[in-house]
């Protein structure tokens, strides 16, 4: 089943630490994902890097401040800036998170958890509808890592995500690390989460590292992908073949070769699974 989002292979998140390699053409990968807000600027090095990256590979715009779950009105200025950036970059797709991050026009710059209620579901679906209408295209929404759940949630996170995608007719950016982190923090089986994902909606995977804080896992993006997340990724890639994968690394960013090696490992796993599919077909 196809999500309608193209297969781009295994790419990397483009971060400032690797701008020089992008500018001189050494950063070679299947595709780049960039944090949209970092490039909503009038000029300078960021936009030059983005254009250079775009000239070498497909680019995807990944937002962190759309605040789909916020009760504030959607920001027209933000959507205008996002649309303008999309017109400039011609991304393969755009994505953001299933969360809220602002209220009263103040931003937490964090991915804050929603209650999984009918009220929140209807609210988020309305806003995704509005965003997709403004951008003139379907977007992907990503599951976030969380450290708390609400007593008044009436359904599970995976049911909430799947139903949101179905009602809003959007895609799902399935962050495998986030599934693992939240599963550990809230003691659910991550395989149940994967099984609940509609195969015709999953358009992208995210992989990243996390930190073990003893009492909980923290989604720090400051380490290699953990063995447990690689194992879960393998299961996700079997369940949802032909889905593009992106490796994120945001803190203590390593040398480009290290990041590219993580993407190569994902590519190898996806290749093994693709070959197995081909043999069994």
């Amino acid at each position, binding site marked *: 089943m196809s999500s309608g989002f193209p297969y781009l292979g295994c790419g990397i998140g483009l971060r400032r630490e690797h701008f020089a390699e992008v500018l001189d053409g050494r950063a070679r990968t299947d595709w780049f994902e960039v944090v949209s*807000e*970092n490039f*909503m*600027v*009038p*000029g*300078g*090095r*960021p*936009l*030059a890097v983005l254009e250079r990256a775009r000239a070498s590979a497909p680019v995807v715009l990944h937002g962190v*401040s759309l*605040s789909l*779950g*916020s*009760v504030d009105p959607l*920001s027209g200025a*933000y959507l205008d800036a996002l649309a303008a950036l999309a017109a400039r970059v011609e991304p393969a797709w755009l994505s953001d998170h299933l969360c*809220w991050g*602002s*209220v*009263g*026009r*103040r*931003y*937490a*710059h*964090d991915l*804050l958890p*929603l*209650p999984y*209620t009918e*009220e*929140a579901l209807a*609210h988020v679906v309305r806003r995704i509808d509005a965003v997709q209408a403004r951008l003139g295209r379907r977007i992907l929404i990503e599951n976030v890592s969380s*450290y*708390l*759940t*609400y*007593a*008044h949630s009436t359904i599970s996170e995976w049911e909430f995500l799947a139903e949101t995608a179905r009602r809003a007719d959007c895609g799902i950016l399935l962050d495998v690390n986030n599934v693992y982190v939240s599963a550990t*923090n809230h*003691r659910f089986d991550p395989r149940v989460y994967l099984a609940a994902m509609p195969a015709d909606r999953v358009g992208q995977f995210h992989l990243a590292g996390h930190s073990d804080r003893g*009492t*909980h896992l*923290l989604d720090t993006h400051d380490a290699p992908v953990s063995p447990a997340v690689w194992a879960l990724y393998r299961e996700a890639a079997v369940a949802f073949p032909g889905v593009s994968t992106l490796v994120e690394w945001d803190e203590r960013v390593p040398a480009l070769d290290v990041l590219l090696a993580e993407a190569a490992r994902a590519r190898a796993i996806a290749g093994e699974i693709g070959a197995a599919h081909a043999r069994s077909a």
Partner: protein
Amino acid sequence: MPDLRELEERFFAALTRAHGTPLDAGLVAWVRGDGALGAAERVEIYGRMYCGRLIAALAEDFPQVATALGPARFDAVAHRYLARHPSTHPSLRHAGGAFPVFLAELPADAVPPGVADLARLEWARVAVFDAPDERPLTLARLRAQPAERWPDLRLRPIAALRVLEAGYPVHAWPEEGTPARAATVLRVWRKGFVAYTAAMDALEATALGSVRAGCSFAATCEALARLVPAERAAADAAGLVLRWVEDELLAEIEGAG
């Protein structure tokens, strides 16, 4: 049970509450805790991330201010700033916009003298870093201007230029202590992808002020003639223009040959 608005408003208030203020017990009651982590501890994870992320962003944009204040003092000042000026822009890039003014308004015993000016300089560097791109005026283009056009020539600075009047030489901030008070005028601009800072003497500051105000070359010479002998003014002005062209802080002349 709360509706979404009440939940978000009280959650955000918990994240941004002042140091030492107890956590909203009502909010905590809406959160599930378990043996591994209580409900309050779970909310506090988000509180620590909020402060950590915003303060790290400020430290990144104001590295010399952070060094001048030291980690503990910078952390305390940043907390007070965030309580007064929560981020109102989707991008963290703008979170420090009011920080220099906030520092300037703090009592003298809260921050060392000159630190507010240092913050203004660091924010100017942030501003020029991603200011609009423009083609700089080249020497060849300038030389192509007919001599009879020079008096009416209106040069225009690039958008990636800021001029800063400070009470301290903040461009030469010492590794330890604070600099002696001295009126200082700086230009901060981007050449290529790099932000530069240079101190200006009275002559250059006057000339650049004239150019930024949209005055003609002749008017700029007249302004300089109030500082130097009239017969020197044109040569001095031309010398400054050549310096600015070399520094790429003038924009291409529209319609230049």
